[in-house]
């Protein structure tokens, strides 16, 4: 008998909802069978904790006296440039932003010790940040210079807004060349000496709802330690990649744009991150509840690491040159075992995504729901799925002449 989200919410309010994590559901469904498990379990919690580059915060600093219009001017938080293209006192800080005087990769590999991701971590941690700005001055906004400390507690709306998070599956990075490479997938040693992956696998949100049947626009989620929402499909959302018979994409596929009140979040789940020789980013903790409405949805949540395949890509040549082709397919059980076999060589693995932290998030969200502190939402609109025809297009470059 199918359930509705409204019925599940009633149970949550009464403190009677049966909530388990996407890891726990695997054994439960095996033991009880999918039909019975679908009747008994109300919610499965999923989670991920990894570097997610397309992340940022927009904030409203309030008006100074006299007024200043930052729009069209320049502004910095702790010397990291912020975007000023919105009105007078709305600014946007992106995770990848770097101080103007950071040497970047002038001496390769650059250190990238401080950037937008670190600013966001310090902001959410309640530290004072130095705001410096220059503007051109108008009759209604005469001021041209501003230098002040700001603190999240004094700001108006301060919103984490991440255009692309929670990738549904991802590449495994290796290096076939004879030099060390420094990538957004970490340091990759020459001659297939390590393989870096980045997904929570069987705990990862979109791998547990592969066709986005419950996760959609308006879905309430755990975001950075607080509560957030799915705002849209993420950029590069690519639902039409090849899938296994159980619906799981064999490569990076769906993504989520998410947002939430930064003031309710915590630096424990939003970490400034440095990728040596590449840049800075933000590591984001996301947890998504899946309402078990019927047996089909339950079955998707029972996906195991050994059922999820990722493509192994050479980041010394194929990736930078945007050439198609994979060196092979490996599953997450193999990846998590610590070694995979590629071209008859045993290759040790490392992950950028923390499975231990993902577990902690899935457990935390489970606790919130069990205690009646977190209700599920009906999505307002579905995300484009495998039947949408939507694909991720490359750039069409055209000569300016």
């Amino acid at each position, binding site marked *: 008998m199918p359930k509705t989200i409204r019925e599940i919410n009633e149970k949550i309010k009464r403190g009677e909802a049966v909530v388990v994590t996407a890891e726990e559901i695997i054994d439960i469904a095996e033991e009880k069978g999918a039909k019975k498990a679908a009747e008994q379990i109300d919610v499965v919690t999923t989670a991920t*904790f*990894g*570097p997610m580059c397309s992340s940022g915060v927009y904030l409203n600093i309030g008006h100074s006296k006299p007024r200043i219009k930052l729009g069209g001017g320049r502004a910095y938080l702790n010397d990291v440039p912020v975007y000023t293209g919105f009105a007078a006192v709305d600014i946007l800080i992106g995770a990848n932003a770097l101080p103007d005087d950071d040497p970047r990769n002038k001496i390769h*590999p650059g*250190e990238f*010790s401080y950037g937008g991701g670190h600013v966001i971590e310090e902001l959410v941690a309640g530290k004072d940040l130095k705001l410096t700005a220059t503007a051109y001055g108008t009759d209604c906004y005469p001021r041209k210079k501003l230098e002040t400390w700001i603190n999240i507690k004094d700001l108006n709306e301060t919103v984490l807004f991440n255009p692309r998070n929670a990738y549904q599956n991802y590449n495994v990075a290796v290096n076939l060349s004879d030099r060390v490479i420094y990538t957004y997938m*970490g*340091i990759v*040693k020459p001659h297939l*000496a*390590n*393989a*870096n992956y980045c997904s929570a696998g069987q705990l990862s949100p979109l791998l547990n709802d592969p066709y986005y049947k419950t996760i959609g626009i308006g879905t309430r989620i755990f975001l950075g330690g607080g509560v957030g929402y799915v705002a849209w499909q993420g950029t590069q959302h690519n639902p039409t990649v090849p899938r296994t018979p159980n619906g799981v994409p064999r490569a990076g596929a769906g993504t989520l744009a998410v947002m939430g009140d930064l003031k309710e979040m915590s630096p424990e789940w939003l*970490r400034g*991150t*440095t*990728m*040596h*020789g590449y840049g800075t*980013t933000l*590591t984001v903790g996301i947890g998504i509840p899946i309402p078990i409405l019927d047996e089909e949805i339950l079955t998707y949540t029972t996906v195991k690491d050994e059922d999820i395949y990722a493509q192994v890509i050479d980041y010394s040549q194929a990736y930078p040159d945007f050439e198609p082709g994979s060196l092979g397919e490996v599953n997450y059980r193999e990846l*998590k*075992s*610590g070694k995979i076999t590629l071209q008859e060589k045993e290759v*040790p*693995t*490392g*992950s*950028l*995504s*923390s*499975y*231990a*932290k993902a*577990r902690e998030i899935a457990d935390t969200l489970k606790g919130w729901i069990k205690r009646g502190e977190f209700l599920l939402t009906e999505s307002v609109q579905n995300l484009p799925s495998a039947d949408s025809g939507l694909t991720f297009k490359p750039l069409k470059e055209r000569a300016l002449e």
Partner: protein
Amino acid sequence: MQKKKVVLTFPYKLINEPITYHLIKDYDLEVNIIRARISPREEGRLMMEISGKEEPLRKGMDYLKELGVEVQSLAQDIRWLDEKCTDCTICIPICPTEAMALDRNEMTVTFDQDKCIGCGLCVPACPYKAVEILF
């Protein structure tokens, strides 16, 4: 046999002395140099593993101290900041001695000071700066 991982700091006047030679020759110690440098303050710094029998090892250490060489354990120069580590595991295939280890049930990372040789490869590899080498 006993083993010690130490960092030696030499004052300027000892920079040209073949101290390692004497440790090997006079005290019959096995010496494995991990790192060596002269700092801008014109001090010599030598990170090494020394092994030998208890008595000669103690005497070797006394010899160093008498010369005015400062001896400290390697552990003081390498710091693993547990609170910064997110258990992501990206350091695991980078560490050559398995000082960084992963409990595959818990999926949590641990650091074994005794296995660390201070090579420093994990320092740039860690996205959260959870390892510091002061050497």
